[in-house]
């Protein structure tokens, strides 16, 4: 049994994939606390789709190198993000509507372009991830992205949390809320891009929301949300990669599906805010079974 469980680690590409899953899962898990507290899951999710044309353009212009996909997607996210801002300011449309139009258009362009580039077999990798295909250099790229992103987020933890809690009050206490909001968005996009190889741009937002959202249902402590998110993200991703090998399923969807499962357990069984706990609690306080309230 143990042999069977550890068998995948005999292969170098598996070891690399598990390591990458730990790294990417931790970074995304930590950053996911900011996405949940900022209530901007959909916005970040839209931007993750906008990355595709950037990747396609980068491959078209400079070919596929270690950093080209990263820089291309960063550029695309910037254009789409700022573009939606410009459209909403320059017309009567709100930013979310503008974003929806821009990112779907960009996504479509990306798909058409990627198909024409002769790397069509890689299309699925960009959409749903291919963590088994990672090279050592990709691992290093991911390491540096995680290092910088986590460094910035932990260094600015105090003013960032104040901005997220109440930006007006934070501003009256001297926090540069506008600059911090832009910076946070930029770091979140960088983290998002780092997860592309693991889960692809269709699923990336799952990894960048689910870990801290799960912990949010279990605790009232902000610190627990960040480090618990990192723990849940890292461990779940690593185990999902192994499970993918054992059960012969794709690793990217396995990671996001398993995160969904962990979230569902917290939602149902959480000791304080879980559905079961709340049902038994309300039964205790009303003295009636919850169904019999008519």
């Amino acid at each position, binding site marked *: 049994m143990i042999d069977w469980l550890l068998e995948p680690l005999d292969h170098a590409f598996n070891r690399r994939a598990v390591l990458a899953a730990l790294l990417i899962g931790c970074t995304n898990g930590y950053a996911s606390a900011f996405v949940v507290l900022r209530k901007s899951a959909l916005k970040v999710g839209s931007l993750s789709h906008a990355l595709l044309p950037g990747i396609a353009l980068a491959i078209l212009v400079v070919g596929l190198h270690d950093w080209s996909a990263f820089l291309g997607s960063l550029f695309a996210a910037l254009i789409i993000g700022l573009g939606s801002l410009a459209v909403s300011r320059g017309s009567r449309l709100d930013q979310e509507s503008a974003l929806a139009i821009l990112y779907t258009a960009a996504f479509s362009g990306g798909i058409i372009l990627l198909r024409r580039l002769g790397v069509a077999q890689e299309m699925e990798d960009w959409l749903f991830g291919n963590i088994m295909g990672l090279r050592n250099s990709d691992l290093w790229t991911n390491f540096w992205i995680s290092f910088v992103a986590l460094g910035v987020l932990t260094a600015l933890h*105090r003013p960032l949390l104040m901005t997220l809690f109440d930006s007006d009050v934070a501003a009256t206490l001297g926090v540069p809320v506008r600059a911090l909001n832009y910076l946070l968005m930029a770091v979140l996009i960088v983290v998002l891009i780092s997860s592309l190889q693991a889960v692809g741009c269709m699923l990336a937002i799952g990894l960048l929301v689910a870990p801290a959202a799960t912990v949010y249902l279990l605790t*009232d402590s902000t610190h627990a949300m960040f480090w618990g998110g990192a723990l849940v993200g890292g461990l779940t991703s690593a185990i999902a990669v192994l499970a993918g090998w054992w059960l012969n399923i794709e690793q990217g969807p396995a990671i996001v599906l398993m995160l969904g499962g962990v979230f569902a357990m917290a939602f149902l069984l959480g000791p304080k805010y879980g559905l079961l706990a709340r049902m038994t609690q309300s039964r205790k306080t009303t003295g009636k079974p919850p169904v019999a309230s008519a």
Partner: protein
Amino acid sequence: MTASAHDSCAHCGHHHELRVERLTVRYHEVEALSDVSFSTSCGACVALIGPNGAGKSTLLKAVAGLQPIAGGGVLWRGTRVARWSHEIAYLPQRENVDWQFPITVRGVVRMGRFPQAGWWRPFSRHDDEAIDRAIAMMNLQALQDRQISQLSGGQQQRVFIARALAQEAHVLLLDEPFTGLDRNSKSALAETLRVIAEEGRLIIASHHDLDTVRDIYDEVLLLRRKTVAFGRVEEVFTPEKIERTFAEERGAA
């Protein structure tokens, strides 16, 4: 007077003055405030009274430095308030706050120490003492480790005031602090505001319950985009002037 008042104006020889001079605020082309002027000083409890859309919240935000100003300005202790000052605390409406945010009472109060502690420095013993004092003054010791949604409306309002005290604010700007509170919480909050005003702090609060103005405040600003009247409650808060503040605009130029 308690020892915790050392940071307010009570121990100074003179009262600090807040002057609002010909303040004008525009949203796009619409004037939200036009030429509003008044001046008051520490120790006063000022009510902002006016109909919806009269610019009460805008005025509070402008004084707090949150609102771009189109004309005029705010002078605190003789100097212009350019952007923010730790001496001026802003307390938002309770309904605009995310009460599910994973933060404790103490965590909120601790935010008030940001101007002193800065971006990175760990909170010092002096910070902790200021936080403890603020929590004790607002009678929140037993609740300080609670998540903020597990508080009553009155307690939530006291948490905000405690943060302003930890911040060592001289001026407290409160947006509708009494809204949504039950009777007991209302009278307790009124008492609290009286106490911190008597310590020498300046309280400015938007308020919409006309029946309680006389009990709580000593000065009143009747506002309707412009200053209708400003002064002592007993002089200015008269039926005739209230009528003028709230009267429907009938074909007004």
